[in-house]
């Protein structure tokens, strides 16, 4: 997953909030802060009163939106709860499984692990915005043809990770495909068909 990285051992809440406002918070640091040092850090009143809500501007699936978000609110919450885009799923909610993968500026990120304030001004693509009207994206077509899913809950995440991979590397080898989707978890265990789908999509996109 491409997320901006910044090496810091620990960070105070104030520093954390300031840094976050600048949009340069590293994913690993967020996890440490949210998971361990600041268990009370949740959206809502109380601790959240430290930072008032802020209006951010996003382009989501080509549509410009302005939306008020709270400091602790994740991109996933904004997509699912405020924009009713429920394609990206909340599976682990801590950056372990990729079920919430969306593209931010063309790169796959974990939306559960990205604060909404971090992506102010960014262009977001979710699985709902991938098809061109009725015409599916080649990756979507390939997931259907190869049966690259079972229950389908991880599928939007896998599809977005695959689209991100093929943008960066249009002709991936088998091992590059595996590595490209290795940030995503399929508990039904359909990986082999997911690899096949990504390979077929790459082939279809090359042919045009």
């Amino acid at each position, binding site marked *: 997953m491409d997320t901006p990285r910044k090496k810091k051992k620990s960070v105070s809440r104030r520093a954390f909030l300031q840094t976050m406002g600048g949009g340069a918070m590293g994913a690993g640091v967020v996890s440490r802060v949210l998971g361990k040092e600041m268990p009370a850090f*949740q*959206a*809502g*009143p*109380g601790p959240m009163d430290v930072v008032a809500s802020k209006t951010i501007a996003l382009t989501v699936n080509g549509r410009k939106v302005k939306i008020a978000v709270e400091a602790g609110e994740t991109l996933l919450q904004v997509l*699912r*709860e405020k924009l*009713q*885009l*429920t*394609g*990206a*799923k*909340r*599976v*682990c*909610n*801590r950056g*372990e*499984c990729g*079920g919430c993968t969306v593209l931010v500026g063309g790169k796959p990120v974990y939306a559960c692990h990205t604060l909404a304030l971090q992506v102010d001004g960014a262009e977001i693509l*979710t*699985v*709902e915005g*991938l*098809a061109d009207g009725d015409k*599916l994206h080649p990756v*979507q077509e390939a*997931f*259907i*043809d190869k*049966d690259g*899913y*079972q*229950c*389908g*809950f*991880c*599928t*939007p995440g896998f*599809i977005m990770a695959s689209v991100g991979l093929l943008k960066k590397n249009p002709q991936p080898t088998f091992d590059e495909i*595996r*590595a490209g*989707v*290795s940030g*995503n*978890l*399929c*508990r*039904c*265990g*359909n*990986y*082999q*068909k*997911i690899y096949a789908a990504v390979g077929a999509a790459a082939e279809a996109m090359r042919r045009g």
Partner: protein
Amino acid sequence: MKTHPPIDDAFAEYEKLSLPQSSQTATAAAPAPQPKPSEFKYIGKPMPRVDGRMIVTGAARYTHDLAFDNMLIGKILRSPHACADIVSIDLSAAQALPGVKAALRLKEDRIRWAGEPVAAVAAVSESRAEEALALIKVEYKPLPHVTAPDKAMEAGAPLVQDQGNVIKSNDAVRGDVEKGFKEADVVLEKTYKTAWEVHQPTETHGSVARWDGDDLTVWDSTQAVQSVRDGLARTLAIPAGRIKVLKHYMGGGFGSKLGLGDYTVTAAKLAKMTGRPVKITLTRRENSTSVGYRPTAWMTVKAGAKKDGTLTALTVKSYNCGGVGRGDRVAAPYSDMYACPNFKIEEYSVFVNACASRAMRAPGHTQATLGLEGMMEELADALGMDPLALRMKNFAAKDKGNTGIPYSTKGLEQCYKLGAEKIGWDKRNRKPGGGSGKVRTGIGMASQIWPGTGAPGTLADIKLYPDGTVEASCGTQDIGTGTRTHMAVVAAETLGLEPKDIVIHLGNSDLPWAPGSGGSMTTPSVAPAVRDAALKAADYLKALASKKLGIPPAEIVLENRKAASKADPTKAIELKELARGIPRPLPFHGERGDIPSAFAFQTFGAEFAEVEVDTETGKIRVKKVVTAHDIGRVINRLTAESQVLGGVTQGMSAALYEEKIMDPHTGTMVNTNYHDYKVATAMDIPEIVPLFADVVDERLNNLGTKGLGEPARIPASACIANAVYNALGVHVREIPMTPARVLAALKRKEARP
């Protein structure tokens, strides 16, 4: 004070799935003559899912994705103690928090496991509900607990159940085992152990409940809409007819979503209290601690065989631990897999302070298969025999270890041949551990048996509309196995349409009865019922066409969206045109017939693995798995292959990584997320080759089809364990085969005289 409620017996619930259900129509005809596979246009072919577009565009709505006007979010407070008496619960501060609309006590007396529900709230947002939970004051009187089965069996251990921490849960005997062991030239006794394996579906358990007057609608992430409806009726004491349970899409269950959940009841109660829809979805942590897992089995297996490999006696003593629940029973594969006249099993349940286990993909059978097939591999070495030849030597053509009634069909021999050829069985080490070097390779296999016959009494409707719409309805659910698609494929095949022409309705408890989707029940229950209804609809359409075309119905075929003369295809009428003659929407009721009693019906199969083991680090890499299953007629080859990939992946994951770890001091589970609870990921997956024996069982149902979910999973861990044995010359005998356990096994080998 009642401290110990009745013991949770999830396994018994699971077993009930396969009990014959009373027939509503009681007119189930004998299976119709079966067409040759070559006559089928779609059935048995690889068919992409009819709802693929829904899934890949994010349009498929899972329970997690639902939102309604005025909907509240419910949250459950859970016990941090593994054993404690509740002294008091004070909800007042939580109730006073703005935005909190209801609070509810869920437990008044003794807590028996960490993660047990204590209280619940409903609030306007998730974060507000979480804050409210933090304001609930619970005074506990902590009591001693025990979470490790071996400690629970010691004298003086804290009592988990009134009957004691160990009870006999099952025993069975046939023949004379003592006589059998005396006849044996070789007798081996080994103990095999399995771990607590957590389902961890991607969509955590959850429900939305909404009341409209006295009528309750529940959207549930469930494998069994009918059971959830019946469970709610019992628990809430309201008429079943007033409850509708819906499940459109569901993100995995693997057995953990087969019954009514306490969170569902809680959502319904909170919704009643507030008059608003209430949604409860569990966190990943709750999903790890509080909704079951596969119970452990510690199985001491003793087998005797003659020099030529003939089994003379088999005994098993098994301790199964499913927390406060009864756990699984492992008897069936030991009893039935191989011809053995003398057999005995004793099973015990061990109780500890952990949530009750739940059925997990092939409950009992996966554990048993590790022990039974491990023993067969070790026995083959002791006898100096090819392990596959030993299995064939003890091939059982009848059930109950060749002492019962004959199997209607048994394609296991074909499976052995297909699998052995594809894996390159001849490349294995003739003597386990016979290779050399730091990294050793090995090939092993394991066999599988599982009913997978479907539920008599399953109903389905085909409805024809005057506008030409053809609808197939069944109160089953598609849990990711492709049920929508196989219903469409069977209906389209029978009516001469294309799968995409069929409108599918399922995942609704108001629709005709079907069993829960567990135990490989769905396809062999639903597909024959749809076929039955579609055959009736086809007869009606042929009669209608007969009048229009002036030829007898028997001379008419339905194909390419037309009713046409067999002799002269130019004499034809479009089905859409024909439908205009239908006076009103016409339903045709189908039923899956009974299962004949003169024969035994089981699925069979074998899986073969090739592994590499680093003898310095103890790390195992699975290179290739070949599977071959006899599941009768395959309905959809594409989705069948996917199920096999899943079964093998989950089996490999259990064999190498998965284990619910409890902290004995706090009595709590420590690995409650995907990072700490290890499951196989994209980088771990071997090449998997799914093959099928394609043995159609014409006696079983009108399509000759059996189930596949369980069969795919059953031998997967065992075949990998046996491949590791073939590589190392010592059986690890305990899963997950972590590097530490592999190295310990190698030390055990070195210490051997």
